C-alpha cells in the first residue's frame, strides 16, 4: 500500500508547491483548493445525477461497441471479403480526429446522444481489430479435429473460437473503457447535455472557476480508474468461475 500512497502524495505535494510558487489560483489552483471544491460538490444531489448520467452514456457507447465490434469482427474473421470491406472503414475511423466526429455528431444527434455515439465510434475499432486479430489465431488443427468429429457449429464457436478470442477481448475491454471515458467527456464538453460531467467542465471554464475544472477532472480520472478496477475484477472472477465450472 505505501508504494502506492507515497508516489501519490509526492505528486500532490509537487502540485501544491507549484501552485503556491505561481500564486495565481485562477490559472493553477492548489491541490487543497481543488479537493475542497470536490468535497463541497459531493453532498449535492446534482453532482450524483450528473455522474450517473455520464456513466450511462459512457457504458452505453462502450457496450454497444463491444457487442457490434465482436459480432462484425467474428463475421469478418470468417469472410475475407467482408474483412477487406470493413478494414478501410475501421482504419478511417481510427485515424479521424475525435473532434471531427464530435462536431459532425452535434449536427446529427440530440445533445444527450452525442457522447454515446462518440464513445461507440472510438471503441468500436478497438474491438473489431482485437477480434479480427484473434480470429487469425484460431488453431486450424483444432478446427480440423472438430470437423472430423462433426462437432456442431455452435459448439465449435463456444469451444474453440471463444476461448481463443478471450485474451484479445480482455485487452480491448480494459483499453476501451479508458478511451470511452475520455472521448465521451470530451463530447459532453461540446454537446453540453443536461446532467453531464463534460457540461460542468465547460461551465467551469466559462465562469473561470478553475478549481471546479480541476475538481471535475479529478472526478473523471477517479471514475475511469474505478471502472477499470471493477472491470478487471469482474473479468478475473469470470475466469475463475469458468475454470471451476469446467472442472466440476
Amino acid at each position, binding site marked *: 500500500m505505501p508504494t502506492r500512497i507515497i508516489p501519490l502524495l509526492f505528486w500532490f505535494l509537487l502540485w501544491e508547491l507549484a501552485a503556491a510558487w505561481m500564486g495565481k489560483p485562477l490559472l493553477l489552483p492548489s491541490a487543497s483548493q481543488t479537493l475542497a471544491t470536490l468535497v463541497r460538490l459531493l453532498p449535492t444531489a446534482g453532482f450524483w445525477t450528473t455522474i450517473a448520467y455520464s456513466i450511462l452514456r459512457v457504458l452505453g457507447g462502450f457496450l454497444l461497441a463491444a457487442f457490434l465490434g465482436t459480432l462484425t469482427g467474428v463475421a469478418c474473421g470468417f469472410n475475407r471479403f467482408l474483412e477487406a470491406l470493413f478494414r478501410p472503414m475501421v482504419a478511417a475511423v481510427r485515424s479521424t480526429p475525435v473532434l471531427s466526429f464530435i462536431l459532425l455528431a452535434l449536427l446529427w444527434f440530440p445533445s444527450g446522444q452525442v457522447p454515446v455515439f462518440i464513445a461507440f465510434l472510438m471503441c468500436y475499432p478497438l474491438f473489431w481489430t482485437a477480434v479480427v486479430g484473434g480470429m487469425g489465431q484460431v488453431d486450424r*488443427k*483444432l478446427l*480440423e*479435429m*472438430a*470437423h*472430423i*468429429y*462433426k*462437432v*456442431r457449429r455452435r*459448439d465449435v464457436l463456444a*469451444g*474453440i473460437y471463444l*476461448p481463443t478470442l478471450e485474451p484479445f477481448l480482455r485487452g480491448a475491454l480494459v483499453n476501451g473503457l479508458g478511451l470511452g471515458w475520455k472521448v465521451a467527456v470530451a463530447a459532453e464538453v461540446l454537446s453540453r447535455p443536461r446532467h453531464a460531467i463534460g457540461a460542468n467542465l465547460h461551465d467551469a471554464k466559462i465562469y473561470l472557476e478553475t478549481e471546479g475544472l480541476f475538481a471535475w477532472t479529478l472526478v473523471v480520472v477517479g471514475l475511469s480508474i474505478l471502472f477499470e478496477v471493477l472491470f478487471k475484477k469482474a473479468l478475473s472472477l469470470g475466469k475463475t468461475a469458468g475454470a471451476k465450472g*469446467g*472442472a*466440476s
Partner: protein
Amino acid sequence: MIRVEHLWKRFGELSLYEDFSLDIPEGRVLAILGPSGCGKTTLLNMICGLEAPDRGRVTGVEGKGFSYVFQETRLLPWATVLENMTFVLKGPFGKEKARERAMETLEMVRLEEFAGYKPSQLSGGMRQRLSLARAFAYPAEILVMDEPFKGQDRGLKEELLGHFKNLLARDPRTVLFVTHDPEEADLVADARILLEGRPVRMMQGDGSSASSTQRNDELE
C-alpha cells in the same frame, strides 16, 4: 469394403500419388507402413475427407463416421480432460450420456481421476491416452491413427498399445494405423501394407491381406 480408386494428388511440382488404388477390409486393423514423409498422412486425409484428391475417389465411406488419433494430440488446451471428451461426444450422445460415455472410456485408460485437469497438467503419455480415449468414445465406424505413438519410449508405447487393444475389444471398428515402425504394426495389425517412392507405390502387402489390399500394379 473401403475402396480407394485411382487417386491422383500433386503438390506443386511434387506428384505424390498417381493412379493409386487400395482396398481396405472392414472390421480389421490395417497398418500402413512407410518412411516418414512418404505421403501416409496425405492418404489418410484423402480417405477421411480432410483433403480432396486431384482425381479419383474413395468409396465405402459414405455416411460413415471417422475418428482420428492425430500425431499431435490436438486437445483443447483451455478445456479439462472431461470437457475435451464431451466436446466431441455431445453431438452423437447428448449432454448427459456424453458425460457417462466419457467417464467410462476415461476409466479404461485410467484417466478418470484426472477428469478435471487441463492437458497442460498431464504428461505426454497421458495426453496421448486422452486422445485415444476421445477417438474410441466417439461412435465412428472407421478409426484413423497417424503415428500416435511416435516419440514415446518403449514402455509407454507398450502401455498405450495395451489400452488400444482393450478399447478395440470394447468397440471393434475398422482401423487405419499409420506408422513408420514395423514393430508397432506387428503388435496390433491384422494386415499391413508398405508405401514408398515418388509417386507412392505399394511395395509389399502382408500375406493375409494380399488378395484384398493389392489390386493395383504395385511391383514390377
